[in-house]
């Protein structure tokens, strides 16, 4: 098994970029060498976590600079897949994001993005980095 992928993407900070980012994620995932049971779900998983992470960066973090770029890095080793999404905003408290209601009581329209990322990835962190923030999502491959 040999994975050594390092992809750096910059796209306009607009939801028009989502389709392309998702497609890039799907293509990368198809070339990852890992157990079949993980590989078969990876394209869909990568497409959705990239989408949710980038939407988060656009809406909450880059709203102060809508003409800026979204910076995404995807690293794949034999051990894990790491997606990092950088933003230049004021940031938010990841730990304070509530789990959305999972029943029809108190059904919210918003707030499922971080929950989806947390459900699909093994670790999720949001940390200050180089004057901005990075959402770092990790999935084990072995």
């Amino acid at each position, binding site marked *: 098994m040999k994975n050594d992928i390092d992809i750096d993407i910059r796209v306009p900070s607009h*939801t028009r970029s989502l389709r392309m980012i*998702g497609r890039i994620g799907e293509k990368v995932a198809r070339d990852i060498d890992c157990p079949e049971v993980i590989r078969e779900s990876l394209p869909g998983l990568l497409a*959705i976590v990239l989408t949710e992470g980038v939407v988060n960066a656009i809406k909450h973090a880059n709203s102060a600079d809508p003409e800026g770029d979204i910076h995404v890095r995807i690293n794949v080793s034999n051990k894990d897949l790491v997606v990092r999404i950088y933003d230049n905003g004021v940031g938010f408290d990841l730990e304070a994001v509530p789990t959305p209601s999972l029943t029809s009581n108190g059904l919210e*329209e918003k707030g*499922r993005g971080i929950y989806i990322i947390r459900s699909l990835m093994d670790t999720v962190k949001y940390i200050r980095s180089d004057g901005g923030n990075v959402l770092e999502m990790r999935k084990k491959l072995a």
Partner: protein
Amino acid sequence: MDLKTEHTEGVAVLFIREDRLDANNSEELKAELHRLFEGGTKDLVIDLKEIHFIDSSGLGVLVSGYKNASILHGTLKLSNLQSQVKSMFELTRLHRVFDIFTSVDDALQSYR
């Protein structure tokens, strides 16, 4: 957004003719639902046959429509969920909230 709305037996059926329902276009669906509710519609079926990707924004608009239909004493139902969409509904437990059908006809049948 490419949307087709038909009215059958007092139920509005919306066919979404896009391959994605995401943060880039979900507001357009929200606007169409708003237009229908303002126009007196309270029972709707949204057909998702062509949607192969949905994100949390897309789910949010469907939830919003579901809640608004309920407030009007109607219901919003869904048909033809493709595999990624089904997975997202299961992940967020929304498959237990919505009435989901494998065809528009079955959804319409449920209103009779």
